[in-house]
């Protein structure tokens, strides 16, 4: 106790302090905001405008959590992280949740001491090439120089892919996504590889986006989702159910615009909006948690449309369509 008081004293001396501990939810409620780890600028997922305001589907997860906990989707502080910093930052407690287009893998789920709370975007790794190269399939890429970002699964996938197909390649791995784009644009590489969504997003940053195309090949499974630390089930639940709330809301046709009129509707919607049952209390957040999320952030489909289906990205739903509409986005029921 004494140890903690003295260190807390030190912290308050420095006047700015944030804190995390095993009971992340209590800490978050205590400090009044969610500390959210995001990318350093990936259009559509997490990007900031010239005033420093963040937006994107990954950002919406954090905003949804803040809406569920505080009934205020703006109670979020963002920490931009490079790919290689992100896990250390989460492990160390620097951030409460990592929502940074991060692929769910076995190692990350186990040895890294992390837990993936769900999948907010099903992705796959692809290739971006110049149109004038005349390449139409990834198998024609033998001998190419490949640009990518360090500390990502893409770096490993690309080596698997080229080796499995007996193709020669040279890998050039940069620290930041912006550097990869700049180098690819300057002609350092023939191919830029990352998750397909990322390719569409980064293509907008090229000098002449129309001179480049994304190859049809998808060489890996990249389920992207929010991540929390292991060993804190309550916080894990808040994170995962914030995401499930958005998906369920879309399935039930509840949007930020029609939420008022949906109140007092069928039993499932009533449970969703907290008019029935005690799902909010069980999670440790307010009873109207999901209604708050939908009214302030919107449902999954709204978030997707707002951030990804707009120009210049124009990403279609694809496999990220709801299960009921032929996609694989599926959330357990609120019951």
């Amino acid at each position, binding site marked *: 106790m004494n140890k903690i008081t003295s260190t807390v004293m030190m912290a308050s001396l420095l006047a700015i302090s944030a804190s995390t501990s095993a009971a992340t939810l209590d800490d978050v409620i205590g400090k009044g905001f969610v500390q959210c780890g995001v990318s350093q600028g990936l259009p559509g997922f997490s990007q900031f405008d010239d005033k420093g305001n963040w937006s994107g589907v990954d950002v919406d997860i954090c905003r949804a959590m803040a809406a569920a906990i505080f009934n205020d989707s703006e109670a979020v502080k963002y920490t931009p992280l490079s790919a*290689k910093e992100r896990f250390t930052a989460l492990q160390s407690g620097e951030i409460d949740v990592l929502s940074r287009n991060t692929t769910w893998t076995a190692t990350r789920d186990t040895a890294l001491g992390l837990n993936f709370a769900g999948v907010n975007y099903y992705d796959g790794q692809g290739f971006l090439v110049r149109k004038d190269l005349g390449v139409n399939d990834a198998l024609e890429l033998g001998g190419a120089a490949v640009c990518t970002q360090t500390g990502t699964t893409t770096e490993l996938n690309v*080596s698997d892919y080229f080796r499995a197909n007996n193709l020669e390649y040279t890998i*050039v*791995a940069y620290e930041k996504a912006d*550097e990869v784009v700049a180098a690819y644009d*300057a002609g*350092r590489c023939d191919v830029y590889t990352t998750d397909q969504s990322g390719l569409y997003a980064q293509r907008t940053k090229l000098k002449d986006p129309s001179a480049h195309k994304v190859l049809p090949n998808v060489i890996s499974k990249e389920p992207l989702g929010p991540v929390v630390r*292991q060993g804190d089930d309550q916080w894990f639940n808040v994170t995962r159910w914030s995401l499930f709330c958005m998906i369920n809301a879309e399935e039930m046709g509840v949007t930020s615009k029609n939420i008022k009129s949906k109140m007092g509707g069928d039993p499932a919607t009533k449970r969703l909006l907290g008019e029935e049952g005690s799902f909010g209390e069980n999670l440790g957040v307010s009873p109207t948690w999901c209604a708050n999320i939908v009214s302030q952030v919107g449902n999954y489909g709204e978030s997707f449309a707002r951030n990804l289906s707009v120009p210049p990205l124009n990403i279609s739903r694809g496999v990220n369509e709801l299960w009921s509409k032929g996609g694989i986005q599926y959330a357990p029921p609120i019951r």
Partner: protein
Amino acid sequence: MIKEESAGPPTVITRPWNNPKVRSIFFQAVLLIVVVSFGMYIFGNTAANLEKQGIATGFRFMGTTAGFGIITHLIEYSEDSSYGRAFAVGLLNTLLVAFTGIIAATIIGVFIGIARLSKNWLISHLAMVYVEIFRNIPLLLQIFFWYFAVLRALPAPKASLNFADGVFVNNRGIYLPSAIYEEGFSLVIWALVIAIIAVLVMTRWAHKRQDATGQQFHTIYYSIGLLIGLPLLALVVTGFPLSWEIPELKGFNFVGGTVIIPEFIALWVSLSIYTASFIAEIVRAGVQAVSHGQTEASNALGLTAGPTLRLVILPQALRVIIPPLSSQYLNLTKNSSLATAIAYPELVSVFTGTILNQTGQAVEIISITMAVYLSISLSISAFMNWYNAKMALVER
């Protein structure tokens, strides 16, 4: 009162806290306790945090298969190699850029430093402009600038600059023919070794003879002759057991030969240019520290400008130059870690970048990295101290 006391020997009451020895031991004990308990506190917290979150610990990961490619490696490396091997590749790349950078920075730095002292107004001011520009701009900015300047200035592989049908330059790097050694090449190596030994012996003999008789012996011409002649003779005798693998354009890029990647070139150029601006100032200060009388005396003895600089000024200036020079060498080595921004796969980029991310073992990896840099720094210091001592002995 006073008289009474001065009658006997003065009684000095030494309280333990007034005794310097006791105090010194006390302070040191307190410091030790503080340091040790602080260390244990940190260690305990870290261990508890790692344990609680189920993060893997230990160094077993070094044996795991890496699975990622590295663009340039001095030793054999493939995706099937272990993390330990990838670590070694990164370390060697750091050493390579540090070593070549130190050599280039020293050459440019000495050159600019001497130019700064030139009697020619234009030359000395150009040198000054060089120094003032490059040492006052952050290195990271210079690295970015050179990298993108290099990339944009060079053509795409299909439009490569071609030198003598063997050397190709494009924005993927400089492609050089690589030598393929055939049977009997070892004789050439031996010839070279013998030539080096002969040169060393000859230099010693020439020094002795000059000390004894005052006669000079032009070792330089004989040395060059030996170093080139003997291996050439061996080549002829063995019938040129050497062939060249010429890089050729296949598909997107050149295949074969040796490639020097643009990341290395940009890093090497910016490190050399940046550090050279500091070395130039050190050299200038060192030369200026030698009194002008030395130059005049040496001119009076009939020595011309070249030998004056080489035999009189530099040996004395070196004593002033070496200590700050060694700290510049250390800085250059540490600054090579900025390569992580431009994809040159050195230690920080490979080990604390990719490997840290695959394994998530930040504590182990950062400790190893720091230990490596620390040992490189300490070895450079040790070498420079040894060299400094050697130079100091020359002083008569």
